[in-house]
């Protein structure tokens, strides 16, 4: 019998496809998320829009809170660590969370190195803005990717940009000849084997969700139509007027992302979405981390 193999790590992400992963800050929100049909919850101390508003250093959450959330729900529980903070990851592994997000939403701990994720038993999801970044994270052991978007803004524009970039770069890769591929491999510091896998699959070799700015059922369906496998919703749910109603509506939208009639119905009467922010006016962009 084998445990913690790449197949099992990738496999759990495959089970989440077509679903919505919701940010929650306590057990009560986790209950609302599970009841609304979330496929997993992301346990964190403050949702990104509050991290933005509060400023300061954002760190891994209190283990007590993570344990309370794990006790509350039966769906997988994910939690975030700072980029490069492998001790926070060791702590989350000791807590036996189901997935670790090495996340730019928290304040980076290491400006040079990401965590060597293949050393961990718990699988990792990481953010990307483009294909090269996604493949570097996969080389380090990430078994799930999410496009970064710009968390805590309620503005979908960066999520769209990152998803389109990954798609366009994947298409461009498929048209490259051998010498162009070698050059790309050197410039992007990614193994040639991994590039060849992307070329033959026509997509990333792991599940890829969209994140960062999804606030409405239409936003979620937009990202699905652009080709992602599912969505993370952060501040978008619990910073809106009617979290339970909006959570259910976004779950419905992801299942029925190609049915405008169902999307219209799901979008009806949800009250105010979270307040949005203009990307150009942000003091701090997280995606560049």
């Amino acid at each position, binding site marked *: *019998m*084998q*445990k*913690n*193999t790449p*197949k*099992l*790590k990738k*496999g*759990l992400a*495959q*089970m*989440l*496809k*077509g*679903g919505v992963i919701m940010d929650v800050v306590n057990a009560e929100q986790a209950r609302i998320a*599970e*009841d*609304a*049909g*979330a*496929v*997993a919850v992301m346990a964190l101390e403050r949702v990104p829009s509050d991290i933005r508003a509060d400023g300061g250093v954002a760190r891994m959450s209190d283990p007590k809170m993570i344990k309370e959330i*794990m006790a509350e729900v*039966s*769906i*997988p*529980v994910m939690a975030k660590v700072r980029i490069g903070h492998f001790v926070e990851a060791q702590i989350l*592994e000791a807590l*036996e*969370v*189901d*997935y670790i997000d090495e996340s730019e939403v928290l304040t980076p701990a290491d400006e040079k190195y990401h965590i060597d994720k293949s050393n961990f*038993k*718990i*699988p990792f999801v990481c953010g990307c803005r483009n294909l090269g970044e996604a493949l570097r994270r996969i080389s380090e052991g990430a078994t799930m990717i999410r496009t970064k978007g710009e968390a805590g803004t309620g503005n979908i524009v960066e999520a769209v940009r990152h998803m389109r970039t990954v798609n366009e770069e994947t298409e461009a890769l498929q048209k490259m000849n051998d010498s162009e591929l070698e050059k790309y491999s050197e410039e992007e510091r990614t193994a040639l084997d991994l590039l060849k896998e992307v070329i033959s699959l026509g997509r990333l070799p792991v599940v890829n969700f969209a994140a960062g700015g999804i606030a409405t059922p239409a936003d979620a369906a937009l990202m699905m139509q652009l080709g992602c496998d599912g969505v993370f919703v952060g501040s978008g749910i619990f910073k809106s007027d009617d979290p339970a109603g909006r959570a259910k509506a976004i*779950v*419905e939208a*992801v*299942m*029925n992302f190609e049915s405008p009639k169902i999307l219209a119905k799901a979008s009806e009467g949800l009250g105010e979405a979270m307040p949005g922010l203009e990307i150009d006016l942000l003091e701090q962009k997280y995606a560049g981390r």
Partner: protein
Amino acid sequence: MKKIGVLDIQGSVEEHFAILDSISKDRFEPVLVKTIEDINGLSGLVLPGGESTAIDSLLQKYNLDNEIVSQAKNGMFVWGTCAGAIILSELGLIDIGIERNAYGGQLHSFETELEFNGKKIPGVFIRAPKINRVGEGVEILSKHDGGAVAVRKNNILVTTFHPELTDNITVHEYFVEMCL
């Protein structure tokens, strides 16, 4: 031509569909199923792996749960893998007891070799449920560690593992044989 559907709400939908497509050889047409109309006229339906609470709430929302039960009672073959197994038990379509996440969280997910209906196959268990009671007339097709991990009664097949995450087609072929 007979149709075999994969419930397309959430989870390992593409994986099941790809294997069915690769073994169909003009014997049946694999289709994706989202609506009551899609279920109508199917010979068989696969409930994929995923998160059973999420799948269950959407089944109820669109009244698909009642349609699956009524079609299964009319003879439609249904196979549930992992989350699908939990749903089949909850819908009362097979008399088994099932315990969710019975092995623990992702740290306790595992791969092992199984014997299924006399053949060796890879068993991929991801936050898997356990079958803790097998009702009368339920046939055990595979065991792990003394407990049933694949069972069948009449037109209902249950596996707590994920054949769709491997390149072994034994269980898919078994289900297709049931349907044809």
